């Protein structure tokens, strides 16, 4: 039963990952990533880490992916040119990844970690549940926990500063900022605005 679940979830995770890489439309990439995250949550459950699985679904597949969907809807998808800018870029990239995978697998399977070939030790029923993780976070890892909260605050402030509309932006671009105009038209208008009048 566990093996069947593992292979289903592994196939889902791999299919989602390939979908992210291969989809031409970024919106489909985001949807594939959501499927990938759900499959990973199943794998986390199989590894008896219930809290990480729940956080994966609620925080990642829920909140973070909504952010992606909003930005894809705002920016618009597609428009990626099909040709390789470096000759053979696709082939070289895949070759490098295959070599990396072979190397990583060799390193994993030939390592001296004897426990890799086991299911892991028997653990108590509370292994990885919210109570145990919360106790660890608030007792042993209190300082890293607070540091991550400061990091999140900094990231939020940074995103607001980055994405805020500049006040000195010319009026031309402010009126052209409506939705539904292709980026190429934008760049054409921008170059018109930049070149000095004779």
């Amino acid at each position: 039963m566990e093996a069947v679940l593992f292979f289903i979830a592994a196939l889902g995770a791999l299919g989602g990952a390939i979908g992210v890489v291969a989809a031409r439309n970024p919106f489909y990439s985001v949807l594939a990533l959501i499927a990938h995250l759900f499959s990973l949550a199943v794998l986390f459950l199989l590894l008896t880490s219930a809290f990480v699985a729940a956080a994966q679904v609620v925080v990642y597949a829920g909140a973070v992916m909504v952010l992606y969907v909003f930005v894809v809807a705002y920016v618009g998808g597609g428009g990626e040119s099909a040709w390789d800018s470096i000759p053979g870029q696709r082939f070289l990239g895949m070759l490098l990844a295959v070599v990396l995978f072979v190397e990583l697998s060799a390193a994993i399977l030939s390592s001296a970690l004897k426990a890799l070939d086991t299911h892991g030790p028997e653990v108590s029923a509370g292994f990885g549940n919210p109570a145990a993780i919360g106790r660890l976070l608030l007792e042993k890892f209190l300082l890293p926990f607070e540091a991550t909260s400061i990091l999140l605050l900094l990231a939020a402030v940074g995103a607001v500063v980055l994405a805020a509309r500049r006040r000195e932006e010319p009026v031309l671009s402010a009126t052209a900022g409506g939705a539904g105009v292709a980026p190429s038209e934008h760049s054409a208008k921008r170059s018109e605005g930049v070149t000095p009048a004779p």
Partner: protein
Amino acid sequence: MNIAWYVVLSALLFCTGAVGILIRRSPMVILLCLELMLNAGNLALVAFSRMVGNQQGQVFALVVMVIAACEVVVGLGLIVAIFRRRLPLDVDDLRELRG
């Protein structure tokens, strides 16, 4: 299932994300592929935490999730800023800093 299966799967997912970063040119898809690589790392962390029977690796995975969220927020802010300035959303055209 043996722990080795999980770790090899995580290596496979990591390589898939690496392919995406190498061959795609839209910054948004590159961010998504970064997520794939971070999640592969998470899977390895949780698998090793199960292997030694210690929950501290799961706390590590949660911290990686926070890092991923920060990366997403800043990266998407950058993409929105690039879009607002009418620059092309293509990492081959955004090469002023290349030197």
